[in-house]
């Protein structure tokens, strides 16, 4: 599938080309990556539920990344940066787990 191929290509580029991340992005990068993973797993779940939509995937990934970055920015400005980051990560982790569970259920159900 296109997403998996893209992911693999991206990882290979990251390993071999070793691009440098712009400095302004560096504090937000981990949260953005985890949020994008959450959107990815959600899309995978939709794929297994046979209602996968490219459009929905694109919108969800972009919105997840933007919202996560905004939350981290908000937390930094409020002074609760690390706590808010932890909270966002917890929530994203919960979502990833739930989507993975649904995927597993669908796989084993047939």
């Amino acid at each position, binding site marked *: 599938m*296109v*997403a*998996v*191929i*893209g*992911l*693999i*290509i*991206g*990882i*290979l*580029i*990251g*390993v071999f080309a*070793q*691009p*440098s*991340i712009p400095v302004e992005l*560096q504090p937000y*990068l*981990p949260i*953005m*990556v985890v949020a*994008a*993973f959450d959107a*990815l797993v959600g899309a995978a779940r*939709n*794929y297994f*539920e*046979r*209602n*996968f*939509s*490219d*459009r929905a*995937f*694109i919108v969800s*990934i*972009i919105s997840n990344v933007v919202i996560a970055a905004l939350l981290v920015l908000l937390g930094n400005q409020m002074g609760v940066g690390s706590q808010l980051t932890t909270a966002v990560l917890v929530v994203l982790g919960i979502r990833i*787990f*739930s989507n993975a*569970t*649904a995927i597993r*259920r669908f796989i*084993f*159900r*047939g």
Partner: protein
Amino acid sequence: MSRHSRKHAVKANNKATAGVKKPAAITGELPRFVPENGPEERPGHRIVAASSAHLAEGSASSASGAQAETPGRNRARVKARRQVQRTDNLEPNGHKKTTALSIFTQIIVLILCILLGVGYMGQQRNVQSSYSSLSESELVRLLDETNQKIDQLTSQKNQLSSQLESIRNAVDKQAELKQMEENNQKTAGVIAGTLPAQGPGVRIRISEAEGKTIPASALFSLIEELRNAGAEAIQINTVRVVTSTYFSDSASGVLSDGTLLQAPYTVLAIGDSNALRNAIEISGGIGSTLRVQYKATVSVDEKETLKITHIRKPRTFQYARTVE
């Protein structure tokens, strides 16, 4: 949303399947594994297959004696069939799309996933270098390692410092030794007559009187007196006087070290000029002997800097050896 319809279909499946524990909403309860009875699933035909499977199952379960509510099953079957008709119009992914748009969205999906991969690898590389991301035990270990390295390097530095000191001392000593050696060489050279010398001393001019030649013995006495007075370097005419210098009378004059000496004699002696002058001028000394006995004119001049430039070749001893 088609997802909603799917949920209904799923619910129908759940109701139709006998004895299967319906999984709760997202709480992670493990559903029991249901073996696939029907044919291979194909998108769009799922409901049909499932329905047929459930029908088969239903019959099988009824055959095995399991209880299933018949009206519920029928309702599910009808509902499922309706779902089939509804879903047959749609494409497998549940949306009607034109091909160009689908390619475009696929490209965007590709780009997003590439960015995700790059971001992931980038973050991985970044995380190694920041201290704030390490756990406490790792930090403690890092601190311990750093302290150990500090100790090691300090001891190494001390070792190297002491080595440097000893080498410096050795170099100093060597320089000192070299200096001493040079001094010794100079002194030895001056004494042996292999090096020119300069310093304060006296210049003695002796001119012979008519008919009275000064014998070698007189010259020898003069040299001896100068030596006794502490002359460090002596030169007579062109001959550098050393320990092995001899004077001998010959038919044509005084021979010294194979060189013929002719009057007037100029004797240069480097040493304490006062003492040297006294040695010559003392009453009853060689000066007066020369004047009285040989009617020679002796003039002694004290000089601040006297240059003795004549040297002699160093000689190697044939018999004498140093004691090892």
